[in-house]
C-alpha cells in the first residue's frame, strides 16, 4: 500500500486549530499538564471500554459537524420564571450585555479567564485538579482537552447561602460553532448554591465543570440541555463532596444528535450525600438521537449515600446508553449506594445499552443497582383508554409516570415544576406531530 503512511494523528488534527489561552503562571502550568495528559491518552476510540456504545468520531473530528439553530418560536426559555442571576454565553463566548452584573450576596462570581489570570488559591486548588483525579481509573480525554483549551466559563465561590440561583444560559447562534467552556465551583463550609444550566450552547459543545463542596455545604444543579436536533455535546462534571455535604445534580435532555454526559463524583467526607439523575427523551423522527450517561461514583468515606436515577424514553430509532459505576473503597463502611437506569422504548427501532457496575471493597455496605428496558405497559394503557383517554395522551401519561422518579430528584419545587412543564410541552409537540 503505497499510501500506507501513518494515519494522520487524530489528536494532532483535533487540537491543531486550538490555542492555550493566556493566564497566570499556575494556570498555564495546569493547562500544560492537561495537554500532557491528553497527549499521553490520545483521543477515545471505539475499542475503549467506555466508548463501545457511543461513537466518538464527531467529538474527535477537527471540525464540528454543522448544526442548524432550532427555532423555538414564542416558547418562553426554561427557568425564565425563576428569579436568578443570568450569565449568558453565545456560542461559547460570554455576553456581558445579555448577562446580569456578576454580583450577588453570598457568593463571588467572575469569568474563568479573570480567575485564572490572578493568584486565587481556591481556583488554583481546583482548576484541572478534580479533572486529573477523575482520569483514574477511566480515561476521559475530552475533559483533559477541555482543561487545556477552555476559552471561557465562570468561577463561582459560594461563601454563604446564595440568595438566588446562578443560571448559565448557553445560546446557539452559529451553525458551525465549536465551544469549550470550563466552570469552577467552590462551595465553602456550610454554604449553599444552586446552579442552573440551559441551552444548546453550540454546534459542538465541550463543557467541563469542577465542583468542590466543602463540609456541610450544599450544591444543587439543574440542567436542561438545548433542544437543537443536530447539536453535539460532551460534558463532564467532576465533583468532590466533603463531610456532611450534599451534591445534587439533575439533567433534562430532549433532542440532540449526540450527548455524552459524564459524571465523576468522589465522596470524600463522612456522612456526605451525592445524587445524580437524568431524564432523556429522544425521538429519532426529528433526526438522530443518541444519549449517553456515564457515571462514576466513588465512596471513600464512612456512612455516605449515593443515588443514580436515570430514565430514558426513546422512540423512532433513538438510542440510549447508561454506564454507571459505584466504587466503594476499603474502609468506606456504612455506604448506601443506589443505582437505577431504565429505558422505556416506545417502539422496536429504539435501543438502550446499559453497563451497570458495582465494585465494593468494604463489608458493611448496602448497594443495589437495577437496569431495565421495557415497553409501555399494555394493561395500564388499556385501562386508561377504557376511561376515554386517547392512546397518545395515555402513552404520555405513562411516560411522565415513568420519568417521575428522576424528576423527583430535583429538591426545589419551582424548578421541578419548570422541568415538568418542559417535558409535558415536549410530549405535546410530538403528539401534535
Amino acid at each position: 500500500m503505497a499510501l500506507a503512511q501513518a494515519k494522520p494523528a487524530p489528536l494532532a488534527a483535533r487540537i491543531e486549530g486550538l490555542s492555550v489561552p493566556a493566564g497566570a503562571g499556575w494556570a498555564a502550568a495546569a493547562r500544560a499538564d492537561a495537554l500532557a495528559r491528553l497527549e499521553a491518552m490520545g483521543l477515545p476510540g471505539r475499542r475503549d471500554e467506555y466508548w463501545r456504545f457511543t461513537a466518538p468520531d464527531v467529538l474527535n473530528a477537527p471540525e464540528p459537524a454543522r448544526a442548524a439553530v432550532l427555532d423555538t418560536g414564542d416558547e418562553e426559555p426554561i427557568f425564565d420564571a425563576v428569579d436568578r442571576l443570568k450569565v449568558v454565553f453565545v456560542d461559547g463566548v460570554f455576553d456581558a450585555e445579555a448577562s446580569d452584573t456578576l454580583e450577588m450576596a453570598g457568593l463571588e462570581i467572575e469569568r474563568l479567564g479573570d480567575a485564572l489570570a490572578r493568584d486565587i488559591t481556591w481556583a488554583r486548588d481546583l482548576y484541572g485538579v478534580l479533572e486529573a483525579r477523575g482520569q483514574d481509573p477511566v480515561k476521559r480525554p475530552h475533559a483533559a482537552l477541555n482543561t487545556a483549551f477552555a476559552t471561557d466559563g465562570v468561577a463561582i465561590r459560594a461563601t454563604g447561602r446564595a440568595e438566588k440561583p446562578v443560571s448559565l444560559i448557553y445560546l446557539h447562534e452559529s451553525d458551525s460553532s465549536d465551544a469549550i467552556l470550563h466552570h469552577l465551583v467552590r462551595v465553602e463550609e456550610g454554604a449553599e448554591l444552586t446552579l442552573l444550566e440551559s441551552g444548546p450552547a453550540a454546534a459542538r459543545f465541550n463543557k467541563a465543570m469542577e465542583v468542590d463542596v466543602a463540609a456541610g455545604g450544599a450544591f444543587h444543579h439543574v440542567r436542561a440541555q438545548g433542544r437543537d436536533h443536530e447539536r453535539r455535546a460532551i460534558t463532564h462534571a467532576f465533583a468532590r463532596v466533603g463531610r456532611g455535604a450534599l451534591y445534587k445534580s439533575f439533567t433534562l435532555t430532549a433532542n440532540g444528535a449526540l450527548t455524552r454526559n459524564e459524571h465523576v463524583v468522589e465522596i470524600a467526607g463522612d456522612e456526605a450525600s451525592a445524587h445524580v439523575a437524568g431524564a432523556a427523551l429522544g425521538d429519532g423522527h426529528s433526526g438522530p438521537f443518541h444519549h449517553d450517561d456515564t457515571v462514576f461514583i466513588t465512596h471513600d468515606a464512612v456512612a455516605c449515600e449515593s443515588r443514580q436515577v436515570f430514565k430514558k424514553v426513546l422512540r423512532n430509532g433513538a438510542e440510549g446508553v447508561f454506564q454507571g459505576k459505584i466504587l466503594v473503597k476499603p474502609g468506606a463502611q456504612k455506604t448506601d449506594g443506589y443505582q437505577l437506569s431504565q429505558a422505556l422504548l416506545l417502539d422496536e427501532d429504539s435501543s438502550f445499552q446499559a453497563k451497570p457496575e458495582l465494585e465494593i471493597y468494604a463489608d458493611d455496605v448496602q448497594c443495589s443497582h437495577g437496569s431495565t428496558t421495557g415497553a409501555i405497559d399494555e394493561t395500564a394503557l388499556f385501562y386508561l383508554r377504557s376511561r376515554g383517554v386517547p392512546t397518545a395522551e395515555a402513552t404520555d401519561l405513562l411516560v411522565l409516570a415513568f420519568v417521575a422518579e428522576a424528576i423527583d430528584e430535583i429538591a426545589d419545587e419551582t424548578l421541578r415544576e419548570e422541568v415538568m412543564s418542559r417535558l409535558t410541552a415536549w410530549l405535546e409537540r410530538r403528539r401534535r406531530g
Partner: protein
Amino acid sequence: MLDIRNLHVKLEEEDKAILKGVDLSVGAGEVHAIMGPNGSGKSTLSYVLSGREGYEVTDGSATLDGADLLDMEPEERAAAGLFLAFQYPVEIPGVGNMTFLRTALNAQRRARGEDEISAGDFLKLVREKAKALKIDAEMLKRPVNVGFSGGEKKRNEILQMAMLEPKMCILDETDSGLDVDAMKLVADGVNALRDAGRGFLVITHYQRLLDHIRPDVVHIMAAGRIVKTGGPDLALEVEQNGYAAFEGEVA
C-alpha cells in the same frame, strides 16, 4: 340501549372459542345481572365490549344506541358512554388518581365537543363524589390503585363511574371484596345513575348485591352462552342450587 346479537368471540392467539353466540339487550334505566360459573366467559364479554385487544369477533354484533361498538377504539366507546368497572382494577404507579380522573373526564368531554371542566369545578365534583363513596382525600392523592386494598380498588372504580356518568355501565364482580357497608354505598351509586336512565350489566357471583340493586333481568351464562334468562328469582335459584341445573342446557 346495549344490543348484543349472536356474539361469537375467539382468542386472537389461538383457536379457542370463548363466546359462542351471546344475545342480550339492556334498555335505558334497566339493570341486568349476569351470573355464571368461573370461566364461562363473563369477563371476556365485558372486555370485548370495551375493546380490549387479544380477542377476535368471528360473528355477531354489539351496538350502543345503534352505534357499532366493535368498530370503535376503546376510548371512543368510553366517549360514547360505555364504562367497565374492572374485575381486577389496574395499578398505575406514577399517575396520580386525581390526574387520572381529570384527564379521563376532559378527554371524554373533548371527544363529545364539550369544554374541559375547570380546575375548581373538577375539585368540587370529585370531593362530592368521593365523599358519597367514603373515599378519603388521601386516596385521591395516591397513584391510581397503587397500594389500595381490594375493596378500595372497587370503590375507586365506582368513583370513576360516578365522575364520568356513563350511559351504559358494566360492573364485573364489583361486589367481590367489598364489605357490607361498602356494598351499600356502591349500590346507592348504581341506583342513583339507574334513576337517571342509565343501563347496567352487573356481573356477580352473589345474590347479596342484588338485594341492594334489584335487577330487572337475570341471565345465566355457561360455556360462552346465555343459557337462561329470567327475573330476580333466578338469582335466588342459583344461590340455592348452583349451576348444575343450567349447565345441562348448554348441550
